[in-house]
């Protein structure tokens, strides 16, 4: 028992070192010019996507509710935080105004999370999916008609405060917070809603509370991701937050495995980089992306494919045993 605890402590230490180590390496490589603006831009986008995917995983993977409007929360966060740095906190120095703006963006998204969460408590499955889809579109349409943030022309001239450091540490924070949440009694409660709502209720779990909780956490982080995005691009347009964007995030969640944080991170990385790798086959990019999706889904779920994976695993274990 004691040994187990010590192991745990070691693990935590190793994780922390790993997190800082990765950051240090990337920073050094960037200063050396080995990671140029192109690569660091991709890294930044990857971090933003990790936040989006891990947060969506909370509602779709752990809570088990299909949501098709994650981009809506992202939009709220993006616009709110951009408005903050451009107008509200314009006089403050970046080091204060930016985190403050991100927080405001996240919180406003959170408020929307409640607004969408409460009425949907009674809804299940595909009906919920539709409501969230509709909600995302409502946000987008409203933004199109808000002239003080540019309407369809987009909101431009946003200070470019986002950099890799911000994105990296916010992504790390998001992952840690969500993992900690999931591995607590509150996380178990969220998962129990996915598994069987009636049994969860009978076990004394207030499912309404936990549904909303999951929604607002997801919304908050999506809002923060939106803020990072806005301050990276310098211009945001409503058309960046369509249903297709929500789908893109959902695809990453599913590919990584529902309710699987590690998988989510890996798939966010892979699916952010994949389109860049495919630049040389430019007009076939979408088609290849589509095929990859289909093949991955088939591979993940076809028994034949799983059998092969198991055999490979067994071989590795045997080898290790021999050594």
């Amino acid at each position, binding site marked *: 028992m004691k040994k187990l605890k010590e192991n745990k402590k070691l693990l935590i230490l190793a994780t922390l070192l790993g997190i800082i180590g990765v950051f240090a390496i990337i920073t050094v490589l960037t200063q050396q010019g080995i990671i140029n603006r192109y690569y660091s831009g991709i890294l930044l986008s990857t971090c933003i996507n990790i936040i989006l995917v891990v947060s969506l995983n909370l509602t779709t993977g752990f809570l088990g509710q299909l949501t098709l409007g994650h981009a809506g929360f992202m939009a709220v966060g993006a616009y709110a935080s951009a408005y903050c740095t451009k107008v509200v906190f314009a006089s403050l120095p970046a080091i204060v105004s930016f985190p403050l703006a991100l927080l405001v963006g996240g919180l406003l998204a959170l408020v929307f999370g409640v607004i969408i969460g409460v009425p949907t408590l009674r809804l299940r499955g595909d009906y919920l999916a539709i409501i969230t889809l509709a909600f995302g579109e409502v946000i987008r*349409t409203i933004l199109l008609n808000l002239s003080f943030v540019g309407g369809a022309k987009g909101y431009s001239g946003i200070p470019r405060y986002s950099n890799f450091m911000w994105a990296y540490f916010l992504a790390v924070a998001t992952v840690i917070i969500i993992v900690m949440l999931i591995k607590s009694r509150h996380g178990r409660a969220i998962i129990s809603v996915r598994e069987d709502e009636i049994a969860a209720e009978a076990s004394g779990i207030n499912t309404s509370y936990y549904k909303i909780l999951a929604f607002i956490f997801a919304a908050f982080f999506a809002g923060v991701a939106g803020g990072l995005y806005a301050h990276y691009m310098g211009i945001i347009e409503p058309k960046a937050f369509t249903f297709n964007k929500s789908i893109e995030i959902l695809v990453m969640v599913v590919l990584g495995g529902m309710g699987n944080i590690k998988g989510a991170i890996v798939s966010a990385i892979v699916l952010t980089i994949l389109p860049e790798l495919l630049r040389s086959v430019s007009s076939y990019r979408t088609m290849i992306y589509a095929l990859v999706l289909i093949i991955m889904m088939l591979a993940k779920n076809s028994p034949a494919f799983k059998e092969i994976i198991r055999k490979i695993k067994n071989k590795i274990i045997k080898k290790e045993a021999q050594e």
Partner: protein
Amino acid sequence: SSEPGQTAGNAGGGTDTDAIIIGAIGPYEGDTSVYGIAVKNGIDLAITEFNEAGNSLLGKTVKLVAYDSKGDNTEATNAYNKLVDSDKATAIVGAVLSGESTAIGTASQGVGTPILSPSATALAFTETGPNVFRGCFTDPYQAKMMGEFAFDTLGAKTAAVIYDTGADYSEGLMENFKTAFEGKGGQVVDVEGYSTGDTDFNTQLTKIKESNVDVLYIPNYYKDIALITKQARALGIEAQFIGGDGWDGVLSVSDDPTVLEGSVFVNHYSPDDPEIIAWAEAYKAKYGVDATAFAYLGYDCAKLMLQAIEEAGSTDPQAIVDALNNISFDGVLGHLEFDDNGDPIKDLAFITIKDGKYTSYQK
């Protein structure tokens, strides 16, 4: 053929010290790819011609590297970074849509890459930096011209507008037309919106019909225009149709050109010009599709950029930007210079559709 993506030496993408790299960015996939590919073809034609004529730029050949943006700002930014950092592009002719162009303009802050967009019309684009230029006229400019023209020349007193609420271009034209037309003393009686991708406009047109206006301003691209004009005439709307440069190409998709008779729109060139006609034929021969304003603009902007580099005498970004600021360029679309904002000073043509053909408007 117009195989998108596979352009003059696009394949490798690595650095090539023997060539000057011109970067292009635009949507080559997705529903806006019509515009992106047309622009890219235009650029491609310019560079191919340049190389085939045995010309050299600062002693080197010119090579086009074009990357797809799918119309997405993040993709465009990535493409920009790759062009500048990995491909060592000297200048960029792009992007195509206003949003993505503004995004790369923003990304170029601190880098200073000369950027010339053939088609980004939103005002915000050239505001992103002194290194950012455009070859097309801005939304406010062309809408203002049309607003005044409608009142002065067409004699319209009342107008209605139907625009795509999701498109920056469409929204920009709507706002500025309204200001200009009303500034002249006309009355914009009804402004109707619709969503991107809509195909049914009957409800809005029914309302517009009630208002019985002299002209109906339709500031959008030809896909929507073909449907709107047809539905409008079917409902019995008799107003004259007017529009912006997005109209160019409408005849190629209309299944019933009679509904377009007498419409007037703004364009970058006049269709009767023999040089234009010759160019269009060459273009069609090479790419198999009809030339649109996007293709002309792509072609001219590429040539303009080459001229600027030549005049700068070096690949230094600031030198090229200075050259652009002082340029005096003559292309298929006529003469062009830049103002202090990086916006073009150039002529604009009023085109009308007569007997199923584009012709220069004559009173």
